[in-house]
């Protein structure tokens, strides 16, 4: 591979490192939600801190990668695509952190009837990100394969959307206080955003690849 320059390798490695860190943030986010939904407060507190630390680590990595990107690696118009993509990926970790912060702060009383659904929703959101992660990793090496994972990201997001809507219906049919319903509705929406943002990022991967079709 004599054609591949050192600068590009360095950026790709940083980019992948950032993806890994966002992945770890999301894993911690899932652990947090499980602990919270199982009423394991001690574990939830631990995970909350982990999420915040990992999120700021991801932020730092994003900034490093962005600085590196403007040192002249890759074609200039691709640098813009990459920059947009890394920002988009970073927003996923941001959103996961927001959920964790809100749940920790408000300590909402989540009805037993939707707890298992919520665990599944979180799992699906994290899985949506994992498909996106694979598509980004393959983007550099094999654009066809990246396309396969873009499709899978869309499918997972759709799955998450379905469960999100079902939960909403279930939530509003429960005989609980309206304020509680609205509080939980916000959390469900925010968890859904994690999957939505992963899909948005995968759209960027798709456009980047499409732009190169000749």
């Amino acid at each position, binding site marked *: *591979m004599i054609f591949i320059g050192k600068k590009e390798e360095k950026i790709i490695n940083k980019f992948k490192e950032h993806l890994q860190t966002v992945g770890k943030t999301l894993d911690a986010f899932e652990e947090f939600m499980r602990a919270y939904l199982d009423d394991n407060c001690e574990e939830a507190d631990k995970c909350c801190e982990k999420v915040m630390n990992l999120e700021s680590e991801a932020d730092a990595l994003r900034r490093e990668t962005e600085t590196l990107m403007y040192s002249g690696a890759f074609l200039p118009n*691709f640098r813009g695509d990459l920059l947009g993509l890394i920002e988009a990926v970073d927003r996923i970790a941001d959103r996961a952190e927001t959920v964790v912060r809100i749940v920790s702060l408000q300590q909402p009383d989540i009805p037993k009837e939707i707890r298992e659904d919520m665990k599944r929703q979180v799992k699906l959101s994290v899985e949506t990100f994992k498909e996106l992660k694979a598509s980004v990793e393959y983007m550099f090496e094999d654009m066809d394969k990246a396309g396969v994972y873009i499709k899978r990201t869309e499918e997972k997001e759709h799955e998450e959307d379905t469960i999100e809507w079902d939960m909403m219906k279930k939530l509003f049919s429960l005989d609980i206080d309206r304020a509680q319903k609205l509080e939980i509705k916000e959390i469900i929406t925010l968890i859904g955003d994690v999957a939505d943002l992963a899909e948005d990022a995968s759209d960027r991967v798709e456009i980047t690849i499409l732009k190169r079709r000749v």
Partner: protein
Amino acid sequence: MLWYILPSLALGWGLGANDSANVFGPSVANGIVPYRWAIIIAAIFIVIGSVLGGAAGLQTIGSLSSGSLFEAAISILGGAISVAIMTYFGLPVSTSQAVVGGIVGIGLLKGSVNWAVLLKIVICWVTTPLGAMGIGFLLYKIVAPWFSRIKSLKLQDRIITAAAWFIGAYGAFALGANNVANVTGALVGKLLNVQQAALIGGLSIAIGTLTFSKRVMLTVGKRIIELDHFSSLISIFAESITVWVYSIIGVPVSTSQAVVGGVLGAGLARGTSLANRGMLYRIFFGWIGTPVIAGLVALGLYLVF
């Protein structure tokens, strides 16, 4: 004697400032090749092209009119002034067409025009955009399937970068080989021999490229990179091949018209029609308007002096 060369030097300088954009413009405008390196590579290859490949064109232009050295110098001056005036008014202009117009303008008055040579030149003008279009179409059809088989984004980027340098250098070579005849061709056999004309002409184009090409490069470049990287490189490659072929035939042609042909050809192969009325008008004007204006200017100058 030096006075007779001055119009050529001015014309060469203007040509370098304007036409190097047709080879390195898109690559510079979209940041693939840094401007400073683009002009250095262009300057070197323009001189090499002029010296190694300029002879045929120089002889053609040298034989277009049998007039005196004074008439030749005035013809070039007329061409150079026309290019300057038309550029100022934003009219499409090609040095090749202006110089031939200048020579023929005075030649008509003196009855010294070699009509067979003129016919050959005009046929080449008309076939330049058409030829480049055909080459652009074929190149795209041949190279695109191969290029799209490259799945690695990193490798694609590297190939585009390497191709931008290679095609730019080749284009500069073709530009020098083809267009040097505009600069010093009229002096061949009257003041300079072919080698001297090639060297002096090539150097003056190179100096124009080195000193004054940035703005044109960015404007022309931006216009062409409406296309993607791949298609714009194919267009320039098609232009370069066309211009190079005409340098072997020995007729200086317009690189601007060749690049338009290249863009149209690549666009057609991609399935998009990029032609418009304005573009065709500019090409027709290049064939007829430019030589007529340059002929009149040269004639005016001749009568004044």
